[in-house]
């Protein structure tokens, strides 16, 4: 068709050509789609429902823990300590790289098998690479009179529960 052979009219200096406009539009669409994919991917990879154990643990009746005892609750990963001032609970997860610590009664210390951190009964670090003391966890008494430890609730040290 001879009409198509015609020269396209020159584009004025201060305007973009049709090709440039569509080029920018295309680039904008791709950027938007890319950003959307990133957001979508991030949302998809973050689980909304987790089937992890509840952080709240029933540690039974308080009178099973003699004064001066440190009891390991391996399932929950906590220590129940009955000191002279009262009850408290410590996380058994090392603050260094997350290994499970163990109560060593012969040393009177909590020891981590991975990199050698050691903590005293109050969770204060006495040796090793751990950057922080073992966190104190909230302890309460249920209506039935059981000790309840909430692993998700870290409390400041030296909050004792007296029964």
């Amino acid at each position, binding site marked *: 068709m001879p009409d198509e052979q015609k020269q396209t009219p020159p584009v004025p200096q201060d305007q973009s050509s049709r090709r440039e406009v569509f080029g920018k539009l295309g680039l904008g669409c791709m950027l938007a789609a890319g950003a959307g994919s990133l957001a979508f991917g991030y949302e998809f*990879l*973050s*689980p909304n429902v*987790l089937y992890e154990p509840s952080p709240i643990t029933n540690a039974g009746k308080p009178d099973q823990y003699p004064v001066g005892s440190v009891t390991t609750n391996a399932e929950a990963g906590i220590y129940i300590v009955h000191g002279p001032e009262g009850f408290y609970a410590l996380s058994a997860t090392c603050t260094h*790289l*997350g*290994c499970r610590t163990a109560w060593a009664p012969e040393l009177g210390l909590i020891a981590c098998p*991975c990199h050698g951190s050691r903590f005293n009964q109050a969770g204060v670090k006495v040796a090793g690479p751990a950057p922080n003391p073992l966190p104190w966890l909230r302890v309460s008494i249920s209506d039935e009179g059981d000790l309840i430890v909430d692993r998700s609730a870290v409390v400041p040290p030296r909050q004792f529960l007296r029964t």
Partner: protein
Amino acid sequence: MARSFQNYLGDLRESRVWQSIFRSGSGPSNLHRSQAIQQNLYLHLFSVKSRRSSLAIGVTWYLGTLSMVTFLILVATGIPLMLYYHPSVPQAYADMKDLQFAVSAGLFLRNLHRWSAHAMVLLVFAHMFRVFYRGAYRPPREFNWVIGVMLLLVTLFLSYTGYLLPWDQLAFWAITVGSNIMSAVPLLGPKIRFLTLGGNTVNANALLRFYVLHCVILPLAGGMLVGIHFWRIRKDGGLYSGKSGDESQPQVSQPHE
């Protein structure tokens, strides 16, 4: 009179079936030998010609080739292992034990997979040291060095993700420690850990994610990077021979290659 094996091979090469499969045809000329490399899907990544000096063992110690061979062994042993392995808690541990004690040749495949994995990490490091100390990373091979660093990371991530799959104590605590190291990344650390594990603890989601990374995503990424790596060797002038005067120019657009 008995015909030699060479005669039979010659007849085979002349046959219509052979010539339909191998497009280059056959013959003793350099052209035919070049075409045998150039017109083959797998071999065309390589240079059509190599310097005899660059193929001597002392030049590269074949460390790159050996790394590739261990990768192929890992693919060849890993796929059969997948047929007996369920990436679920706690079945994974039982499957690993079954592979060791109940599956015919399971112990052999698993051990070959494990030892090859160790060998691959070692060989990749050795290959990089060899390239570094010979100066084979210099222009025009800089980008191939970068690809090599990516391949090192893929190798290490493959090693790390494979470590969790036996689902034993060593696996669990190694990944616990490793993922806690991840959370030391400034600002994003805890989020990266959460996304990698698919949760807050090393659990069923983490096992499944590591399995998919180990068996699908990382091998595919590694395979693609290896393809680019080999192709760049050709484009950057073949293996670095280290001789003065070998300032191997990159081959610029050869239309018939």
